[in-house]
């Protein structure tokens, strides 16, 4: 059997402060990525909806970004933007784009055409129509995408440890380098816990924002 105790709780309690610091770092990195990602995705989605011919190239490009291994992408950014939060964020944001754009577009397109027709017939201009009718009704699908993007991003943040950021990935990397299992387990477990917690929070947010919904939407892919 493994010689030393596999997981040392005393180490965890001794380093509570550091753990807290890394968890915050992790959440901040995730938050920025989601915020920026959502903003960019909203713009690209609106363009894709307004000019349908741009949609295939947009999805193609974001799809390619999604496929590039994160390791490669982060490593590639370092010579350009250094071992900085910026490098991490450029990579993290890129990975959110595909799912967010897809869900925003699907959500808007999924709005009941009768509702759209009634709104137009009553005299809604296209801007107010989008903001007051289409967007709110697309929220469930959009938020489903945000949930997926959030969980994915939290996992990816761990890899940014390799370029000096990392959040709880810091523990994974350090544990790996010094063969210290406790840190590896801690880092991984924290990542999972954060993902589950953020997911739950987003579910609550969705319920708060959409009081008119009966059946909750199943996750859109």
């Amino acid at each position, binding site marked *: 059997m493994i010689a030393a105790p596999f997981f040392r709780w005393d180490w965890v309690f001794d380093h509570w402060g550091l753990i807290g610091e890394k968890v915050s770092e992790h959440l901040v990195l995730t938050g920025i990525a989601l915020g920026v990602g959502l903003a960019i995705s909203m713009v690209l989605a609106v363009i894709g909806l307004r000019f349908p011919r741009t949609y295939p190239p947009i999805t193609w490009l974001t799809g390619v970004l999604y496929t590039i291994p994160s390791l490669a992408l982060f490593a590639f950014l370092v010579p350009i933007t250094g071992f900085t939060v910026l490098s991490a964020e450029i990579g993290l944001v890129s990975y959110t784009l595909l799912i967010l754009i897809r869900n925003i577009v699907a959500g808007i397109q999924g709005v*009941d055409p*009768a*509702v*759209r*027709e*009634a*709104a*137009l*017939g*009553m*005299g*809604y*201009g296209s801007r*107010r129509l989008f903001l007051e*009718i289409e967007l*709110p*009704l697309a929220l469930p699908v959009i938020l489903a995408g945000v949930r997926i993007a959030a969980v994915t991003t939290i996992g990816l943040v761990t890899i940014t440890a390799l370029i000096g950021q990392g959040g709880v990935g810091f523990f994974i990397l350090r544990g790996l380098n010094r063969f210290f299992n406790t840190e590896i387990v801690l880092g991984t477990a924290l990542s999972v816990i954060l993902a589950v917690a953020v997911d739950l929070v987003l579910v609550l947010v969705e319920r708060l924002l*959409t*009081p*008119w919904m*009966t059946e909750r939407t199943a996750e859109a892919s």
Partner: protein
Amino acid sequence: MIRLENVTKVFPGGSGPAVHELSLDVAEGEIVVLVGPSGCGKTTTLKMINRLVEPTSGRITVAGEDIMAFPAHELRRRVGYVIQQIGLFPHRTIAENIATVPRLLGWERARIDDRVGELIRLVDLEPGMRNRYPRELSGGQRQRAGVARALAADPPVMLMDEPFGAVDPIVRGRLQDELLDLQRRLRKTIVFVTHDIDEAVKLGDRVAILNIGGIVEQYAPPAEILRDPSNSFVETFLGSDRGIKRLSLIRVSEVPLEDGPMVDKSATAAAARECMERYGVDWFGILDGKKLLGWAWASDLDGSSLAGIEPKPFEVRLSLDASLREALDTIITSHTRVAPVFDGNRFVGTITAEGISRELAK
């Protein structure tokens, strides 16, 4: 109020104009129904009035103003629009839905609240519905909410596109009656599209029968169309029971009533027999002054007077308001083959099958 002049609509990729040089006038305060087979352009025509579809050529004016003179969304805020699937906003309460156009027009809070309350009462929704979401309402209630929403800003003109198509016939009949009732009170100018000729006949002050391509085959009050269809297309479209459809438009009060084989309870049996022979029937009715007690078979006569006879009540009593169609139904289904007519409780006369035919033949 609404005038369409040589309006044409060609859709790109279509095999011909959807609407070709249609000209139509809608007077203020009337309900005009556009009816016709699929592809006749009735919905397209309706949508051109509020520019959800832009005409390819021709002119449309509402209250004398060309509809192209201002931005489309401004026009639409002054025209009520009701569609079959209603399109209530699921993320807003009924009150918020109804308040849509007033909000777009910038009314103050208080005025909007009052108006919403007024409309909810007007369309017969319970006040408690205000803060419910559309998904909590039944089909008929949603339809009423849709109508209330269209009426919110008190538009002079309403466009309705098969609004009652999605509900069951019982609810539909009720909604039609409520619309007529509303119209009596509000006197809006309404353009109504349907594919159901019965609905057109029931609701329309004037009905336009459209053929493919938006060709107006006949445009007249429903009674006139039913009486004198202008060509074979219209005749076929009206259906083979044209005569019976006409009956639903004529009120009992409009035709002369006959006395029928009625005798006073104090009359002799001989008088009763003589009455029955005159009318060629084997039964007679018994009056007590102006009150109709009921009827009896000839074979019930026993002795020289009517004393001792238990009159059977008439199963159906028609009011003056009833249509000849109901009268005919009563006549066909009863023993007596006449329909007794009452003004409240007072017996005023009878209608017979012959009487009805005579009316149709006029």
